[in-house]
């Protein structure tokens, strides 16, 4: 049971703009559902739909042995938070397997990053704790980030969440939206995606970004370089709604219940199609990587094509001929 102190101390209160956005998206969803009753029924009845089968877990869970060290403390960014319990046996055992306490902070963070990014398959499921995510092997972007954050905290590396609302969806969700017309209608009504995130770990006296949510195949399907620890997805495939970014120790309160209502109730019939889209993207990316001659070759090629040609300072140099006036 959460105490009010805990809620405030662990930064679980969502910012005002997220609450507003939540209300607006709920209204948008109800509008879609009310205006499309027949549509919703059709979705439930459709027989020609491809069947979504959750992909198998890509890894074996290491065995937890009593006495295994866990360096999470009661300090900020090192303690368990909502849906991110860094003291569960699964996390402790995995942290050990990934080299906690034998590797340097950066090396371990990289191992945790690669594990969460590559091994947890993206799937829209109601928000639950990291232990469930690890057992299942799939999760939303928030759950994937929570695994990274929990692993870092278990190894004594402060870690936190960074959130934003997304302004553009078509690029990354194209395949999923094609399979889930009701969700597409909802997204179109909202105009943005409610909450997306990245992880951050405090290494060598600085917060280092971790773009966990998109695996290598998913990034290849969108022709993106495969991001490494320290590389942000912002500006690469994420375009946040201006002013919507915020950093928190915990996942905001209320996200769990709303995701359950949404995924198990209101959008339940659309979700398999949406998740199927993710798998299609992953398969497409797998082919692209293979055609490029492997991941390293693909990544080098994608980076060459996206390599910034000019320094930001050069591109945004003040120009004497361009005069800005107030309206």
């Amino acid at each position: 049971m959460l105490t009010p102190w805990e809620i405030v101390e662990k930064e679980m209160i969502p910012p005002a703009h997220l609450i507003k956005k939540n209300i607006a998206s709920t209204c948008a969803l109800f509008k879609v559902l009310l205006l499309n009753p027949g549509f919703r029924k059709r979705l439930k009845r459709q027989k020609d739909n491809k069947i979504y089968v959750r992909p198998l877990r890509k890894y074996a869970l290491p065995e937890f042995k009593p006495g295994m060290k866990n360096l999470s403390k009661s300090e900020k960014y090192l303690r368990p938070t909502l849906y991110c319990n860094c003291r569960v046996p699964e996390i402790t055992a995995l942290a050990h397997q990934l080299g906690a306490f034998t590797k340097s902070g950066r090396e371990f963070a990289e191992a945790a990053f690669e594990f969460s990014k590559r091994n947890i398959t993206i799937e829209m499921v109601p928000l639950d704790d990291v232990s469930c995510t690890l057992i299942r092997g799939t999760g939303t972007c928030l759950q994937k980030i929570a695994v990274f954050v929990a692993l870092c905290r278990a190894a004594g590396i402060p870690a936190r969440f960074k959130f934003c609302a997304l302004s553009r969806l078509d690029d990354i969700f194209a395949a999923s939206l094609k399979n889930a017309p009701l969700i597409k209608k909802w997204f179109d009504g909202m105009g943005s995606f409610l909450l997306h995130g990245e992880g951050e770990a405090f290494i060598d006296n600085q917060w280092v970004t971790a773009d966990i949510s998109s695996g290598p195949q998913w990034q290849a399907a969108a022709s993106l370089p495969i991001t490494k620890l320290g590389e942000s997805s912002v500006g690469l495939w994420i375009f946040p709604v201006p002013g919507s970014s915020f950093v928190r120790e915990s996942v905001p309160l209320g996200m769990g219940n709303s995701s359950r209502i949404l995924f198990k109730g209101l959008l339940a019939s659309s979700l398999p199609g949406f998740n199927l889209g993710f798998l299609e993207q992953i398969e497409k990316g797998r082919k692209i990587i293979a055609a490029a001659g492997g991941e390293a070759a693909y990544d080098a090629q994608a980076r060459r094509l996206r390599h910034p040609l000019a320094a930001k300072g050069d591109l945004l140099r003040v120009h004497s001929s361009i005069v800005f006036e107030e309206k």
Partner: protein
Amino acid sequence: MENTGYNSYINKFDGLMEKYIPSKSAWTPADEALYGPLDLFRVPLEEAREMQLRSIRYSFTHHYENNKVYRNLCQKHGFAPAHIQTTADLEKIPMVPDSFFKDYPSGREFALWLGNIFTGDLPRISIKGKHPTPDEVIEAFNAAGLAVTFSSGTSGRHTFIPRDRRTFFAAEYAIAKAVVAMIYPRWDTSWHEYLLMPDPRKTCLFAGKAGAVFFDVIHDVRVAIGREVSTELIRMTMTGPKGMKGRIVKYFAGRKSKRMIAEIIRWLEFHEMSNEKIFLFGAPFILSRVIEKLRKEGRSFSFGDRSWVGSAGGWKAYEGSRIPLADFRNQVEQVLGIPEKYCLDMYAMVESNGCMMHCPEGHYLHAPYSFFKPLVLGSDNKPLAYGEWGRFAFLDAAALSYPGFIISGDWVRMLERCPVCDRPGPVLDPEIRRAAGEETRGCAEEVRRMLAVDLKNEED
């Protein structure tokens, strides 16, 4: 060019294009290579190589000296104008991926970005407001005498190209001359044209705006899309109408599109009776819908030799449900009665001023190689030999206001010369695809998306 018939034909064209051609005394090597040849597709190879070397070297030097952003890139590559001695050196010119032109910031920074990728001196540009939209910034640039145009992909992210008047005129001239030369001796000012694109006066969409040139070489031009087409409208249509505003815009815009196909058919009916020469040019998607409707109604026309179809803006956009070009030509012949040899496709893009044009004989895409060097690059960005598939890139000497040395996202195959006709220059295989992982794009795709839902509704 020995053909006196062709000479008087093209001189008549050049006479009408006076405002587009700079005074001969002020011609640069790039101008000589573009405006000099009577037929851009029949320049003798040796002569063309010389022109290509001189014009591209001139253009490169111009950008190196007047564009700080590009000069820094060249310095990183250790490449300077002095390194261009032979035509082989042209292939070492540092190139810019087309994605560079869509990696722009917003608001006032967008204006600075445009200003800094521009080569040369900018006129005074006054931008109002703290957070100007892309449309407001473009409008301010264009009000100052420039011609900023855009195109975009399915992501809704636009490609912006800052052209000055001279470069924009060069692009328009190159398009019109490519068409007129390729359909020799059929062009005449008395033709009646249906431009299957947005009204050039109401858009900065490149494919629309560049179509303005047809008003100067053909007396009667009708436009299919009369509404204003802004970046905002394109964004809404490319990414789906988001929110209430998007829906309202889409609704009103859609009402006009619904009448478009019927109007084109009425125009065809009128000209079937009038016996005048007709010319349909623009997004193939629109013509395809016209044909579809006529087929459903069991109707057809027989325009024969007094007609011509030019498609532009890209079938490359239809990766999901593309109609092969040969099938499209076949449909045009069967339903409109326009012979296949008079149905030619143009391959152009917002970033380039040279367009590649189908020859009537073999439907291969011919390059205007006197000022425009097409290249096919391998995965290491090195030029491939003729006959190999790779990424299309080009060195465009006519681009004087931005560095026109660009790597595209299109997957092509180049041949040393056309296997069918006797034009001497290099050609591209007629079917252009998008490279793996590249978003679909093309001006025709924008037009298609703008109209697709409306036209579907109309049919329903």
